[in-house]
Structure formats: C-alpha cells, structure tokens
C-alpha cells in the first residue's frame, strides 16, 4: 500500500463537535457526572421547596438567589477533569497532535461541560412547571432568571476549564477554580461590601469591587428580569476571555 497525499483536516465546527461528543460520552461513562447531577438537582429542589412551603409565594426568587452560592462549588467539579485528566493520562499529546487547533479542543470540551450543566439545570424545571400549575407566576421573570443562571454557569465553567489547563491535577484545579469563582460571588455579598467600604470610607472599595468586578449585580439584574447589555458583555465577555486564555495556555504549555 502506498501513502496518500497529506490527509484532509476536519472543519472547525466538525472538530469541536467530535471532541464534544467524546467528552460528553466520557462524562456519561463516569460516576462523577451522575453524582454531580443528582446532588445538584436534589439540593436545588430541596432548598426551593423548603422556602416555598414556608413563604407560600409563587415565584422562584429564592431558588435563583441560591444559585450563585451553589455554582462555584458544583461547576469547578465538572470542569476540573477537562484538561487535568488529559494530562494525567497523557492523552493530551494524542489529542493535540491531531490536525486541530487548540481552540477547537477547548470549545469542544466546553460544549460538553455546558451540556452537562444544562442537563442538571433541566432537572430543576419541575419547579416552574409546578408554579404554573399552582398559581400565576411571572414566566418572563423565571426565564430571565434561568438565563442569568446559565450565563453565570457558562462563565464559571470557562474559568474552571482554564484553571484545569494550568493546574497540575484535578484536586488543585477544583480548589483554585472554586476559590476564584467564589470571589466573583462573595464580592457581591452585602457584608463584604459593608466591611470593605467601612474600612476605607474615602475609597469606597467594597462598592467599587461590587460594581466593577463582582458577578452579583449582573446576576441580580437578570433575576429582576433586567437583561442589560452590560450584563451580557460582562458574563459573555468573561466566558470568552477564559476560553481564549485556555487555548493560549495549551499553546504555551507545549513549549
């Protein structure tokens, strides 16, 4: 048999789709995906139900207020293996010597992680369905709240994946990603803002961090049904930034 001319390359999206398919199958073959999904769905539903039966109001504000505290713990657990596992098993060399761009690999893995997150989020849909049956909730408000959760989750996943590309192992990736993700949330906590402002009142440090760095004003706007351009730019832009940095980190790590 004689060799052919240099082989063809897959298209950008086809390559990313192939990697997403492999990654999603790897998630579904591993126990962590099931543990993660069940734990997330149970916790989210339980906390909501508890509040719902106490207050008796037909809205999901309590559920959405819980999300920024849950996601920084759950999503780094999804993202931690994405690159750290490839490095541990040395399959990263196999993958990145295929004729694909690092960004294709990044987007493929990201799409798989996002799909798992969406699957988990779908497990909370019985809540709005139940509310619709029980009363007359503001469906638009619920939809914008879900969009906020989705955008925040997408940002935390991109961050977690970037950290996974830099970290030496999965545990380190999880801890660092969880800490950094929590910072985005904690800086929007009233107590943090009050303490930081009180310490240097002339600087209004807490308020500045809240306005410029924290994810919370953008998320809270979504929960209130206000999806502004600044929130989309902030959440979408940070996700894109972390994905781009991830691809760059893969290139740099080769050298």
């Amino acid at each position: 048999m004689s060799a052919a001319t240099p082989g063809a390359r897959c298209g950008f999206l086809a390559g990313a789709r192939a990697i997403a398919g492999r990654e999603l199958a790897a998630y579904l073959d591993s126990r962590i995906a099931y543990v993660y999904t069940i734990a997330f769905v149970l916790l989210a539903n339980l906390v909501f139900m508890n509040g719902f039966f106490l207050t008796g109001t037909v809205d999901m504000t309590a559920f959405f207020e819980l999300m920024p505290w849950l996601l920084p713990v759950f999503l780094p657990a999804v993202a931690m293996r994405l690159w750290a596992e490839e490095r541990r098993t040395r399959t990263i060399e196999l993958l990145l010597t295929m004729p694909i761009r690092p960004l294709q690999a990044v987007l493929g893995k990201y799409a798989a992680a996002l799909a798992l997150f969406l699957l988990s989020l779908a497990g909370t849909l019985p809540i709005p369905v139940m509310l619709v049956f029980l009363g007359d909730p503001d469906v638009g408000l619920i939809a914008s709240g879900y969009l906020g959760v989705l955008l925040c989750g997408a940002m935390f996943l991109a961050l977690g994946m970037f950290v996974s590309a830099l970290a030496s192992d999965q545990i380190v990736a999880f801890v660092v990603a969880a800490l950094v993700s929590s910072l985005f949330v904690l800086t929007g906590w009233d107590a943090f803002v009050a303490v930081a402002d009180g310490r240097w009142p002339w600087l209004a440090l807490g308020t500045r961090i809240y306005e410029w760095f924290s994810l919370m004003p953008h998320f809270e706007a979504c929960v209130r049904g206000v999806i502004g351009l600044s929130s989309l730019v902030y959440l979408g832009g940070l996700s894109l930034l972390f994905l781009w940095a991830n691809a760059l980190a893969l290139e740099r790590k080769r050298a």
Partner: protein
Amino acid sequence: MIRVENVTKRFGNVVAVDSVSFAIGAGEIVGFLGKNGAGKSTLLKMLCTWLPPTRGTITVAGRDAVREPLAVRSAVGYLPEHNALYEGMKVDRFLRFAGRLRGLDGARYAARRDWVVEHCGLEAVFSRWIHECSKGYRQRIGLAAALLHDPPVLILDEPTHGLDALQVAAFRDFIRGLRSGRAILFSSHVLAEVTSISQRLLIINDGVLLADAPVADLRAQAAARGRDLDEAVLDLVRTAGGRP
C-alpha cells in the same frame, strides 16, 4: 519528506537536542537509536509539532512545522512513546473519533477503518473497551489510529515497547509493508530492533547526532576494524564522551 535543519531544543538550561540535521525521503525506513534520555523522543515530538524547536527548521511533507503545524499534523501519523489512549472508549469509537478529527467520514472513513482493522489485526477487539485490551493490542490500536488517514510520514516512538517476540516480528513485517511512498522514522534504544527493520540509522546521544549512515555502511566500517555493529555503536558513543 522530512527535513531537519540545525534543530536545537532547550528546556531551561538543559539542551535536549543540539543542532541536529538530517533528511528522510519517501520510501525510507530510518531507525533512530539512542539510550533513554538521549533526545529521541524530544526530536520526534518536534517533528509532529507537539514541541516547538528552540532553534532551527523542521519541514515535513514540504510544510514548516512551526508556521504550518496543522498541515504537518495532517501529513503525519504519530505513535507516541507511552501510547496513551482513551481508556474509557471502545476501539471502534476511538477509531471513529480519530477519523473525524482527521476529516474522514462516510465511505472514506469506512474504507480506511476496514484497512487498519485488517492490517493491524484488530478484529478480535474491535468492539471492546480499550482498557480491556492487552499491551500488544493497545500498541496496535495506537498504530491503527496513526495510519487511519494514510499519512505520507509515519513517526513511531518506541513502537515495540512492551510487545512479545512474536508481536515484534509481526510488527517488523507490517512496517516493512508500509514503506512504499512513505517516510518512516521510528525510535528504539535496542540496536537489533532498529537494524532489523531499517536500512539507515540515526544515532543520537546527549542530544547530539553522532551518526547518520546506512546500516550496511556502519556494519562494513565496524567489520573493517574487527568489531561488530554493537561494539562500533558503543565506541561511537564513548568517543563522543557519552555514557553508553
């Protein structure tokens, strides 16, 4: 097919490959010999664009490895030293995945898959999980993935590592059969293995290329000095100041 010109690779202060130059044409099977840590794998990783050279140029199938890495990767079939595979995949799914990343689909993929499955002897494990396969089969799976796109350049890093004697013999025959129109470079630290397949030998030690010559010439030179090839290679390494 492969042209390496004054290539150097440094990791911090460590020089892993030092000003190495050679060229390999189509139809050649070249053995790359050197002890562990001599710089073989580093050089092979640069050829398949996994590592960039610190200095020098690498051209594979007419494409520059630094400027056109995707074109080079398309032209290369690479079997890495540790042959890491996705353990959680079945063999058929793994080959399909590799095929899709190589732009193979439909009838073209099916034809190439059938070819590699037949020639790499994967029929018995085709539907099995990779983690259930023996070391020998895993090497064959890695080789099948490297050959799936019918590459004009084949780079094999310690391909017979972990294979038994029968598997090594079968592997040699198989590689010889792939020679036509293809440049094949494979590394080993075992001289007998290299000389049994290749007509030409590259010997590297401490990152420096000590010899680039046909096996027959090296053998003749050794015989003229009353030495066998093994001893001549050891002499070469000692003369260069290296530890054999």
